[in-house]
């Protein structure tokens, strides 16, 4: 950036074809595509596991699987969805969009980018291998609480190693995002001019760098407890099983915001576009995101109110958790104010963003309820919690990912998806997801614990409803794949700005976006134009 007049032109436009294009990929778009395809694959594998769970829970009694295998399914479903589907999907979107939005030709560290992606297939191959070894896949829950997780058989080292690989991949991806945003912004693109997706991802990247090593430490201690005679978490050797939970959730709570902050970014782009009005309170959105990230480090023990903490500790974690409602509320109010006096249209990306707005807010309400410690003594480890975190993760994070894919697909592929099929996918998903998760609030309040393969007959009716919702939601996602496949194959040609309200540098590029996004970099006039429309 020091010398903007002499732009380095890398003339080695070597473009390997076939398998090599992907194995040796250094282009941010190719790697972004790899991430998204990988995430989609894991989404369907994790989804298939969820359907095994919901099939078993369709009625009381054990019909299909052994309880141990059921526990493996809940454990693997969570690991696949969190580390395999949602996180790589966000990294994929970051790869595609950040260079385009900040005016860069590519990510800052392309070979690192390649490495961080290609760790993932190996990590998940190791993890999925455990399904086929004696003793089966890990079944102690994705939270890996000892002493239970230490009872695992041969799956144990494979799981730990897989988690290490996922963690390294995430940290490298995060470093790449930070370096790209800090160093590769086009002249004139100040930090407070960036689209909110870049901002939320920048904050997410710092969270990743801060907490993935903590997870690595926690699982390494499990490993040495299991194989090398240490007793970090073994009471008989002077250790403390609760210490693991503290360390795990010190990672785990920021992790929750790692999954949702980029969603805030995507929604903050889509709602202004389809309201044809700039985002309301841009700066307060940035500060709210940063506050949420900060608070995420001091609320971890609200995941473990029932372990027996001192009164002062419980009060502290209750109050800090309740505080999170404030910046989150600011965000929701800003989105509402963005729509106010807008000119709103309802294309598929907007529909998904609106469903996010409504349903994430419901998840926020149940989160507020969970913060009230005495009430949490009832909610904790019941289906109420399952309903809560699925509301923030499925119609929250996953819907935002889908909104982002529909929103940017025309820019990526140069082709439009079928609006009719997109809307059908939206309605099936939204209705399905509510039938699936809303009754789980009732089940939890009535006293059904989570992670059980069979239940008392009083819970039969709502479980059946929930399972029906699960199958509706699960199978409608096949439509999502079909819509994208159809669009890329034979969709209508998309104009450079398919959404009349879309602003930002990403929409100043031709459609489809060129292979090396901004090469040469955008002129100050182009940057100023993109930025001006945004504020």
């Amino acid at each position, binding site marked *: 950036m020091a010398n903007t007049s002499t732009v380095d032109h890398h003339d080695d436009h070597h473009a390997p074809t076939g398998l090599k294009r992907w194995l040796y990929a250094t282009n941010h778009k190719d790697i972004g595509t790899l991430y998204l395809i990988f995430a989609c694959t894991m989404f369907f594998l994790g989804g298939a596991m969820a359907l095994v769970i919901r099939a078993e829970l369709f009625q009381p009694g054990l019909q299909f699987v052994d309880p141990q295998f059921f526990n493996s399914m809940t454990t693997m479903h969570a690991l696949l969805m969190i580390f395999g589907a949602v996180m790589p999907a966000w990294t994929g979107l970051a790869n595609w969009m950040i260079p385009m939005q900040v005016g860069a030709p590519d990510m800052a560290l392309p070979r690192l980018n390649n490495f961080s992606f290609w760790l993932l297939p190996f990590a998940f191959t190791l993890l999925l291998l455990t399904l086929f070894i004696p003793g089966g896949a890990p079944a102690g829950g994705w939270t890996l609480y000892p002493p239970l997780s230490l009872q695992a058989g041969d799956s144990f080292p494979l799981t730990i190693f897989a988690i290490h690989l996922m963690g390294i991949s995430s940290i490298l991806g995060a470093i790449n995002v930070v370096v790209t945003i800090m160093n590769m912004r086009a002249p004139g693109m100040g930090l407070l001019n960036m689209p909110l997706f870049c901002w939320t991802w920048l904050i997410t990247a710092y969270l990743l760098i801060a907490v993935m090593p903590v997870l690595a430490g926690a699982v390494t201690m499990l490993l040495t407890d299991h194989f090398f005679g240490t007793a970090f978490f073994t009471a008989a050797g002077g250790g403390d099983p609760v210490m693991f939970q503290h360390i795990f959730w010190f990672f785990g709570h920021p992790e929750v915001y790692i999954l949702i902050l980029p969603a805030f970014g995507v929604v903050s782009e889509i709602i202004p576009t389809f309201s044809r009005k700039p985002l309301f309170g841009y700066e307060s959105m940035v500060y709210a995101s940063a506050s949420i990230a900060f608070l995420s480090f001091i609320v971890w023990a609200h995941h473990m109110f*029932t372990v027996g903490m001192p009164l002062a500790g419980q009060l502290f974690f*209750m109050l800090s958790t309740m505080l999170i409602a404030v910046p989150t509320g*600011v965000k929701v109010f800003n989105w509402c104010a963005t729509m106010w006096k807008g000119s709103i249209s309802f294309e598929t990306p907007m529909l998904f963003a609106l469903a996010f707005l409504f349903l994430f807010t*419901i998840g926020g*309400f149940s989160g507020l*309820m969970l913060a009230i410690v*005495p009430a949490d003594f*009832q909610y904790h480890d019941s289906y109420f919690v399952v309903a809560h975190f699925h509301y923030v993760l499925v119609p929250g994070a996953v819907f935002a990912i889908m909104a982002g894919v529909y929103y940017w697909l025309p820019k990526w592929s140069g082709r439009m998806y079928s609006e009719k099929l997109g809307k059908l996918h939206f309605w099936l998903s939204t209705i399905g997801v509510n039938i699936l998760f809303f009754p789980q609030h009732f089940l939890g309040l009535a006293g059904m614990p989570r992670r059980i393969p069979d239940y008392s007959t009083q819970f039969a009716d*709502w479980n059946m409803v929930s399972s029906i919702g699960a199958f509706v939601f699960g199978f409608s996602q096949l439509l999502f794949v079909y819509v994208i496949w159809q669009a890329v194959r034979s969709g209508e040609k998309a104009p450079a700005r398919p959404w009349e309200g879309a602003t930002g540098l990403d929409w100043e590029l031709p459609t489809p976006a060129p292979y090396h996004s901004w090469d040469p970099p955008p002129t100050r006039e182009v940057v100023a134009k993109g930025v001006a429309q945004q504020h």
Partner: protein
Amino acid sequence: MTYVYRSIALLLALTVVASPLTAHAEWGDLNMPVGVTELSKEIHSLHMTIFWWCVAIGVFVFGWMIWSLVAFRKSQGAEPDVTMTHSTKAEIIWTVIPVVILVIMAIPAARTLIAIEDTRDTELSIKVTGYQWKWHYDYLGKDVKFFSKLDRTSDETRQLNSGLDPHAVPDYLLNVDNPLVVPEDTKVRVLLTAQDVIHAWWVPQFGMKKDAIPGTVNEIWFKVDAGKTGVYRGQCAELCGRDHGFMPIVVKVVSKQEFATWLAAQQTGATPTVASREPAPSPRG
């Protein structure tokens, strides 16, 4: 869009109409039980208070969203007001009001929490130890102790493809061989620990749960209201391995008189009502 809102409204209306009609019907199990102890009622009332706060905020926020979506439709010729980009006044208002609501909510929550933690003046202490996958109850200082595990009928029915109908089993998965017996109107302290992995002891009608952790002793207390004798059921609430779903908790609340008789009988070993069908396994290592 209107169709969707109408459906949601209909669903809500149905829920409201259905709930009082169904004292025992399964569809009616929509809310947290009020419970039968001093604390459970306080917890329930906190739950309802925060719930109604959420409903109130929801009416406002969803009302605002729906209003915007209806009033500012492009299809109805809405023109965007692109000058409306920020307002410090608005930002302050919607930061301060939530803070006030949270403070209003935090005060009663803290008060109940302090009551929950107050384990003074307990009249009976029972040590509860979690095992994979049963509970052990020890009436401290009374020389009465026994294991409590899933009843045989439930156990046979819950086997994979047992061919037996869970609906035909009374209290399927919520019944044990030897229930815990406690007197009404007595402050009972429960000391929780575990032998192997972490479990959690939860009887929803008593208002709370707590983890049973190896190497640690946690405590909770409950005092069942006078006149609320009966059988209350719960389950292990912390994933504890293969049969986590099959280690229920059954508490039989009796009058003080009956309890004294029962305890005496246990101490002399006269009536083997609580003797296990199998010898109690010795604790592992």
